[in-house]
């Protein structure tokens, strides 16, 4: 596939993520911050976000496994995940966090477990799409490098 076609594919793929509500306009801001001084910025931020998100989801899972859940601890984790989701533009994941926040506020363990299930699904979807996005970006960089 030639360079122009790959770039169009990437653009369309990202657009589809916006249309599905997986990403919101905040992701465009992040793309706009990538330039020649930060050529891999998008990949770096996505990697950072995914590493942190997985760690937090595991921690939330662990917390909810205890008989007596420490909800204030849980609040802190949910706050982090919602914050980073908002900052990267992960719209559906951010909304899923709101469900967990509400269940945690109500000290509803069962509600928290259900909300965590949704968060895990949304995160897995997002991660798959991010992986595809980064694969396209890397292919573009490789082609651009070969053409120079």
């Amino acid at each position, binding site marked *: 596939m030639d360079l122009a076609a790959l770039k169009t594919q990437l653009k369309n793929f990202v657009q589809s993520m916006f249309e599905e509500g997986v990403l919101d306009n905040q992701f*465009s*801001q992040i793309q706009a911050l990538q330039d020649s001084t930060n050529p891999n910025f998008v990949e770096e931020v996505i990697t950072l976000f995914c590493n942190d998100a997985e760690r937090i989801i595991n921690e939330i899972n662990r917390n909810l496994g205890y008989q007596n859940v420490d909800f204030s601890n849980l609040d802190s984790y949910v706050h982090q995940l*919602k*914050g980073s989701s908002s900052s990267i533009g992960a719209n559906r994941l951010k909304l899923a966090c709101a469900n967990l926040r509400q269940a945690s506020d109500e000290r509803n363990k069962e509600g928290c477990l259900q909300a965590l299930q949704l968060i895990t699904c949304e995160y897995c979807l997002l991660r798959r799409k991010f992986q595809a996005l980064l694969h396209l970006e890397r292919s573009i960089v490789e082609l651009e490098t070969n053409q120079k």
Partner: protein
Amino acid sequence: MAPTLPSSDQASDQDNWDNGRLARKRQLLIEIVLRNKLTALVVDGDTTCRVLEQLLLRSYGVQTQCVDNDRDAVALIASGVKFDLIIIDMILPVLNGLEATRQIRDMGVHCKMLGVTICSGESERQVFLAAGVDVFIEKPLDPEHLVPILRELDGQ
């Protein structure tokens, strides 16, 4: 044999792509030029948020430091380091953003403080403002909220 066209078509498509991206970038980032050297401190326990806020500030030429907890933020300011702008999250490791804000203000620090956090209601907003932040911004920090503040600090 008919002469072949020079391979300028593909290059011009690429130029159009790159120019389009540049135009979009300028639109999204709301270009401003700061006349003065501004400094900022970002206090956020989440790495992704911290990195993004720092890069956004740096893209406008603001010299930015980061800390990941409120205790280090208070210690840094207590050591005498001055900032034009402090961006602080509400929920932080160690203490919390509210207490850190109060301590910073109690030290006599009058610089602009932005409470940038996840909000779940008006009461949280009021509490953060009462603790001493000047502006409450719901995450994510974006140019639309940041640029007017930078202009004000720059005396524009």
